[in-house]
């Protein structure tokens, strides 16, 4: 080999350059997709740029505590979906998913009505990253101690 650079090192530099270019391209693509690749809009997006009245959109956020009301017909519910900055009222008729509770995440598919209410055709529950055993959730400390003492007998 007469060259000053060993072929092994030349290949390493080439491979590293190719990887850097690849990561750059990937990041650019992700940046370009940052709006389109989102699965839903959050309430502040809806407040900032309301969708056209009959455009199908998805709205995601937290079901605000204390906002869930069942209407007299028994199948229609109303609740507020918020993201900490804005709230959107939602109306939905149908079967609620198991994980749908106040204070939890939800994704509603539907359209924004003229009066600002989001009319949902379909609800998806969103689970958060917290995993908590069921037994301990509803108990106060005293109840938990009593249960432990009882099972210990």
């Amino acid at each position, binding site marked *: 080999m007469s060259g000053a650079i060993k072929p*092994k090192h030349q*290949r*390493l530099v080439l*491979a590293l350059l*190719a*990887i850097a270019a*690849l*990561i750059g*391209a*990937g990041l650019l693509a*992700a940046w370009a*997709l*940052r709006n389109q*690749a*989102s*699965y*839903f*809009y*959050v309430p502040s997006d809806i407040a900032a740029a309301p969708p056209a009245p009959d455009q199908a959109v998805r709205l*995601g956020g937290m079901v605000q505590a204390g906002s869930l009301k069942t209407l007299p017909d028994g199948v229609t519910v109303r609740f507020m979906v918020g993201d900490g900055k804005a709230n959107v009222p939602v109306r939905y008729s149908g079967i609620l*998913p*198991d*994980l749908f*509770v106040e204070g*939890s995440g939800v*994704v509603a598919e539907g359209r924004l009505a003229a009066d600002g209410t989001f009319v949902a055709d*379909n*609800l*998806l*529950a*969103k*689970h*958060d*990253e*917290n*995993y*908590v*055993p*069921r*037994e*301990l*959730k509803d108990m106060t400390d005293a109840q938990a101690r009593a249960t432990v003492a009882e099972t210990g007998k």
Partner: protein
Amino acid sequence: MHGFANPTRFLRLARLLTGPLLLVGLSVAGGAMAYGLFAAPAERLQGETVRILFIHVPTAWLGMGGWTAIAVASLAELVWRHPLAGIAARAVAVPGAVFTAICLLTGSIWGRPAWGTWWVWDGRLTSMLVLLFLYLAYIALGSAVEREGASSRILAIFGLVGAVNIPIIHYSVLWWNSLHQAPSITIGKSAMAPEFLWPLLIALAGFSLLFGGVVLARMRMILADAQAEARLRRMAEEA
């Protein structure tokens, strides 16, 4: 590393490790899943469906880890021309594809009761499906390269390029709004109660050993195949 450039030395170690890795991996993963099925508590919101966690999450991590290993081995093959690197990369592809498929299936089964849908085209689910397709394309390309006697460098380049998808899978739930939840376990922090976290980590260890055992077994198979081929060719030339 170059000590293992000699396949005989590698094969001796691989023969010793394959059985124990498969056996220990299978029993540890099986034990952790049995604990998850029968002894772990129900979750506050998910209820009993939380038990699928102990197979879904380890297979997801190993599916992604598998392609990371393919990328590292492909780099080693392209730069250092290590003779075992390409074989290791090809050996990872099948278990990687199987684990990714198990992850997608179990996730779908969990999604029906938890979310109310089998499938959505959100960032995480879509990028994980892309990973499965990348694995299938890699396997197909690998057998085409072998059949046509083409340079395995094409396969290594594909292995490196496909690695772009791995950070996309990881960050899909952070960059974009998605139906899939954000990671529960990040470095040094867990949003998961210890009742779920510990069996999950043990299941991960078991599945990793199992994965390693399958990779070693497949590497031995690929080496034995090449050896048999070479012997046949020699015999044909002598005849």
